[in-house]
């Protein structure tokens, strides 16, 4: 694949498609060639839908030729995390338990990508049922980090992060219950946007935790993420958690800058966290400094103890996750991967009193975050506290919960986005997390775009694949 093609933003590729200087078929063929070049060592895809991709691309080319314009995603390649149902295409949840599962209909998000004229390249690796991992005892290998294949992608949207960092797609779907969009985004150097709870339909996506699950995009750039959000967002009356709130034009304010914006930093969330590395801490401070230089008012704020958010998130996640899997745990425990069992089975030990208490705290903590937005337009905090660890690093059963600071905003439902800010000395990405008012994803995209520009991240070349110099 020519470097020029895989570096084209969604918007730029769309412009060329409309100008007829590029075809969707050429884009799809280039992406398929890139999969062929790197899937054997990076494993982002569990299934490549080559025939479907070429058919989607041919249809897009014919429609564009005939003057039909489905919008900025028309003819653009994408891929879906393998917990999103796809009609007639296996949706395995990366699990032995679902190897033969072929849905009869698309998830709402998959259908929206189809309606937007996207070109489906295939299904992406995940941690089994979107929890646990990285695991080597599942039907498919774990995805590897394109910045260094000996390192972890983060999870659970592991294939999504890897496919974008490898330059195969600019946009992929993810899901986020305790950081599963923002974690892989942070480790793989992509943008990862967990929208407000209820902003994107979850219908047809395998549940991990009914009240904490969020669907959203991972993308190469903030603008790509804005385009993806535009097609993913919207009310779904058949998802009981879905919110009937108007969807704005996410690209309209992207270049508005940060002058005059008030950004709060809940410094106690991360500053004394044992897992925070000097490089990650310095990267956060650099981003804050650049935002100040660009005219934002940045001030420290106090939120309740991060550990409280994490504990309430974990109790609710494990109780609800155990409820999802209870019958299969009884009947087929050994068909699950070891890490999935290790993470979810303790949910059986949560009592009704524990869950009630977590629910009460959830309301209190959400109120505390909402109060902070009385005087701030957004919050900025840590994303990952360190660059991606090695895949062979001994697994700490608590590791999914403590060094990554994401679960707080699954608990409260606020939108949150991981944005890359630079590379550590070892060549692995560093990032920050932005948090917004409910349904104000546009503000996160605006600040994220400024960070992308101010930190120079937009000019950082992505890792080369085999055969590229």
């Amino acid at each position, binding site marked *: 694949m020519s470097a020029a093609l895989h570096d084209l933003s969604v918007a730029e590729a769309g412009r060329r498609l409309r100008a007829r200087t590029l075809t969707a078929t050429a884009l799809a063929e280039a992406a398929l060639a890139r999969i062929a070049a790197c899937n054997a060592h990076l494993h982002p895809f569990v299934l490549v839908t080559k025939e479907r991709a070429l058919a989607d691309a041919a249809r897009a080319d014919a429609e564009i030729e005939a003057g039909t314009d489905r919008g900025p995603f028309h003819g653009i390649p994408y891929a879906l995390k393998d917990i999103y149902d796809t009609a007639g295409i296996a949706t395995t949840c990366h699990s032995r338990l679902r190897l033969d599962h072929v849905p009869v209909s698309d998830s709402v998000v998959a259908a929206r990508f189809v309606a937007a004229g996207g070109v489906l390249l295939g299904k992406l690796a995940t941690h089994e049922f979107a929890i646990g991992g990285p695991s080597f005892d599942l039907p498919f290998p774990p995805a590897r980090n394109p910045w260094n294949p000996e390192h972890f992608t983060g999870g659970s949207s592991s294939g999504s992060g890897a496919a974008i960092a490898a330059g195969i797609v600019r946009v992929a779907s993810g899901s986020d219950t305790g950081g599963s969009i923002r974690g892989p985004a942070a480790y793989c150097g992509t943008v990862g946007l967990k929208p407000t709870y209820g902003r994107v339909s979850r219908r047809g996506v395998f549940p991990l935790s009914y009240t904490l699950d969020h669907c959203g995009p991972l993308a190469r750039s903030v603008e790509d993420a804005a385009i993806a959000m535009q097609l993913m967002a919207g009310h779904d009356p058949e998802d009981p958690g879905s919110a009937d709130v108007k969807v704005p034009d996410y690209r309209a304010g992207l270049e508005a800058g940060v002058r005059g914006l008030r950004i709060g930093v809940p410094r106690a969330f991360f500053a004394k966290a044992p897992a925070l590395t000097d490089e990650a801490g310095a990267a956060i401070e650099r981003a804050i400094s650049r935002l100040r230089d660009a005219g934002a008012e940045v001030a420290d704020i106090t939120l309740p103890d991060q550990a*409280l958010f994490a504990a309430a998130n974990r109790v609710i996640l494990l109780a609800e996750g155990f409820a999802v899997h209870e019958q299969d745990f*009884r009947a087929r425990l050994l068909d699950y991967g070891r890490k999935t069992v290790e993470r979810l089975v303790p949910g059986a030990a949560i009592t009704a009193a524990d869950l*009630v208490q977590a629910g*009460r705290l959830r309301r209190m903590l959400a109120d505390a975050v909402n109060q902070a937005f009385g005087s701030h337009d957004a919050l900025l905090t840590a994303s990952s506290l360190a660059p991606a660890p090695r895949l062979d690093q001994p697994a700490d059963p608590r590791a999914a919960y403590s060094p990554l600071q994401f679960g707080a905003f699954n608990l409260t439902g606020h939108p949150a986005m991981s944005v890359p800010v630079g590379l550590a000395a070892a060549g692995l990405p560093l990032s920050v997390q932005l948090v917004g008012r409910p349904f104000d994803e546009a503000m996160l995209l605006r600040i994220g775009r400024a960070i992308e520009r101010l930190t120079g991240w937009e000019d950082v070349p992505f890792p080369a694949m085999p055969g590229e110099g």
Partner: protein
Amino acid sequence: MMAEAEEARLRGEFDALMARAGLSIPEERRAELLIAFADLRTEIARLHEALPPTLEPAAVYRVERAR
């Protein structure tokens, strides 16, 4: 001695909860699950300490107007 007693209590509690849930945990998986269980218990204790049970309003349920 205390540590042994605590570990035995933890194992007993874990086994009882798994039995209540109808789960049969293979012996070779118990050690890793016990670590995760102990860690979860610490987090649960944090929740109970943070918000006294009699503090009202609990605010976990809200009646909404029918549309």
